């Protein structure tokens, strides 16, 4: 996915450096028919640029903040936990639900993410069917079941 295809605003931001996983996740969300805007990014710095409308996304005119950020842990350049740390450290973004969607089951990773204020920590199932189900369930919960914060703009 190219940066050009990123919408001005999205409901779910997915940060995933593996294109196959990104596509499987995107497909799963489309299938669910939630009618939501998905933006997929390949690395942490891109997400931060997008959210804060800077760098390559300086020209972006954001309408709303996302309803959910799905964040992989092992990302090139700026890793998932660094992104998380910055998001949760910023008054403007700290209320955005962030779910780690990662292959890691390492206790220290889990601990660290919760320390940084992650809202949920989910391990990617190897099985693609279950992976798809997991992504769908997450989206349904955070978008439709969970009551989002009132403030949705920066």
């Amino acid at each position, binding site marked *: 996915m190219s940066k050009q295809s990123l919408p001005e605003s999205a409901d779910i931001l997915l940060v995933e450096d593996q294109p*196959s996983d990104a596509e499987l996740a995107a497909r799963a969300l489309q299938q669910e028919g939630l009618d939501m805007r998905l933006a997929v990014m390949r690395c942490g710095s891109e997400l931060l640029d997008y959210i804060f409308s800077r760098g390559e996304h300086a020209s972006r005119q954001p309408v709303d903040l996302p309803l959910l950020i799905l964040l992989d842990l092992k990302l090139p350049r700026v890793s998932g936990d660094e992104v998380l740390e910055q998001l949760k450290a910023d008054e403007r973004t700290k209320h955005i639900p962030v779910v780690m969607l990662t292959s*890691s089951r390492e*206790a220290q990773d889990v601990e660290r993410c919760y320390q940084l204020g992650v809202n949920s920590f989910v391990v990617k199932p190897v099985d693609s069917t279950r992976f798809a189900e997991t992504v769908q369930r997450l989206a349904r919960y955070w978008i439709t079941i969970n009551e989002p914060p009132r403030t949705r703009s920066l």
Partner: protein
Amino acid sequence: MAELQHELPEMDGPPEDEHVLFGAEQQAIHSRLYEDAPVPYIVGTADGIIRKVNKQAAERLGYAQEELVGAPVVSIYAETPDGRPRAKQVLEKLRRGDDLVHDEAQMQTRDGSVFWARITIRSITNEAGGVVAHWGVFIDIEEQKALEKELRKARGESEAEVERRTSELSRINRALREEINKRREVQQEQNKQLAAMEASVVGMSIHESDGTFRYANPAHATIYGYDSPDELIGESWEILYDDRQVEDVKSEALVDLKQGRRWTGELRGLRKDGSYFDVLLSLTPLPDGGLACICQDVTRRKQQERELQRYADRLQTLHEIDRAILSAESPHAIADAALERVYEQLPCDRASVVVFDHESQQGEVLAYAVGGDSKIKRGARFPMSEFRITEMLESGQPEVVHDMQNVPPTSVLSKLQKEGIRSYISLPMMLDDELIGLVNLGSKETDSFTEAYQDLMREITDQVTIAIRQARLLEQVQKQTEELEQRVAERTAELESFTYSVSHDLRTPLRAIDGFSRLLDKDYGHLLDEEGQRLLSIVRTSASRMGQLIDDLLALSRLGRQEMRKAPIDMTELAHQVTEELLRVHDRDSVSVTIRDLPPAEGDRAMARTILTNLVSNSLKFTRDEAEPRIEIGAIEKEGAWIYFVKDNGAGFDMAYAHKLFGVFQRLHDDDEFEGTGVGLAIVERAVRRHCGDVWAEAEVDEGATIYFTLNDVPGVPNT
């Protein structure tokens, strides 16, 4: 008073018989004699009737002569047991034919007084031999009897007296004999003692109250270097000691003696020739104010004592060094400990231990001890050439330099000399004929190191050498062990991290294979023929299998690295939870599962759950084809420890492969029969091991399997 009874008519004149016997003349003479005889005289008939009594007899008996004639003879005898009965006995004897009878009997006077008489009666026979008369004479023996009685009494008394005196005498005699014996023994004893005293090697003497010799045995003289005791007799004991000792004796020993106490002690004796020696004295006060002295030359004993003491000191030194060395661990500590003791116990001004590194040709000062400041510090390294390593040292012999000015200086020696060291000894530390170091002792005096000193130092050096060698070996071993452990740890970490990252990294492509092959199947499956669909399904199954494998490997890897969280675990409850969950997931309600009461465990609950989950899963899997599948979870107690088990009646396995059971990727069944990754029991094994427990199996093909495991050896938890 007895009245005489006349049995016969009174007769005139002598009996007719007398005529027969004597002629008339004779008879007249006889009668005359008879009548006038100063002896009482009685003639009686054979029948015992008195026929005639002379004047003497009548008088004695108190009768008139005529009164008695015709009376029975017995009537003149007393009416006592010694009177008439005896008279009758006499008559009887006569009647029986005795012609002469002597007897004593009690007779009786007319007035009844009784007297003893000696009677002699003779029978008078006629020619035909018939008894015609009895002639009797009696003599009053009353007086004699009384005398006799008196005499007898007197004799009795005297005998008693004699007896008493005799016994007294014999007693005295005995006492005397004993006394004599005793005195003899004492004498002998004294002789013996004297002989013993004379011959004794122990000096003995007796002194007058003024201290002069009354007696001295030869040994006493010899001990003090005199030729004969005579030289001492009359002299004062004071000549045997110098003034100081004399004063000591007076102020100490003599005070005790005056109070009646014995004194024993050692003095420094002064011989005649002026030499001194050690003498052991025992002084005993005598009742007369003198004293007895026993003395012994203990110079040799003292020498031996001193030698023993030296020996003991030496042993002590060695022992202390031993102990110090034993408690030390590094060569440095050993050398320090040894030197500290040497420095304490053996006089020297400087001590050091140097070890050589033959590769770098350097010597390192392991330890040193000095009185003052030293230019040579511990840990300092010098080229070996700086040390004066002589051939003596290289051959294992100590090198003694009595005066350093006599040897060519090296820089090390010069430094020592500047510190004032004048003599030194170097002792080689030899290891397998190689000089590995030196123990050096220096003194500010020349000629400080005696043979004895060298001997002791040699022993100490040997000990230090052995200890340093041990310590070096130990250090090597420890270093190697640490290196090995380090390497193992690194390798393990590498391996774990490799396993983890590989497993982790494999997941994404695998999910892609799985996900996209599924999409392919879903979206384009209808375009594929049967073979195409079969091939696609193989891709999908393989992906799924690989996913399981990776999950298992990750679990295994995690188990190895995961921190243990120890807590009490209710194993019964856990077994129920695990079983219910698995039965639900696998939809195997038909399995009969028996869960016994399990003893609680202490350990990591998650790991315990992993263990039970894997074991019960296996049992479910392997009982799949059983008509009546049964699983039992229980525990048995053995030697005080609990052993948990999970037992099933499933496919079992051949015990010949039991050793492979817990290896990673080890499978004992074909995939066609029972699918699996071969990691499950490896996970169980690792979890059990992390609890310091044990796991093993018992099985038989088609008869089921039982997996046993223990958890109770968790570190820090005492065995029950």
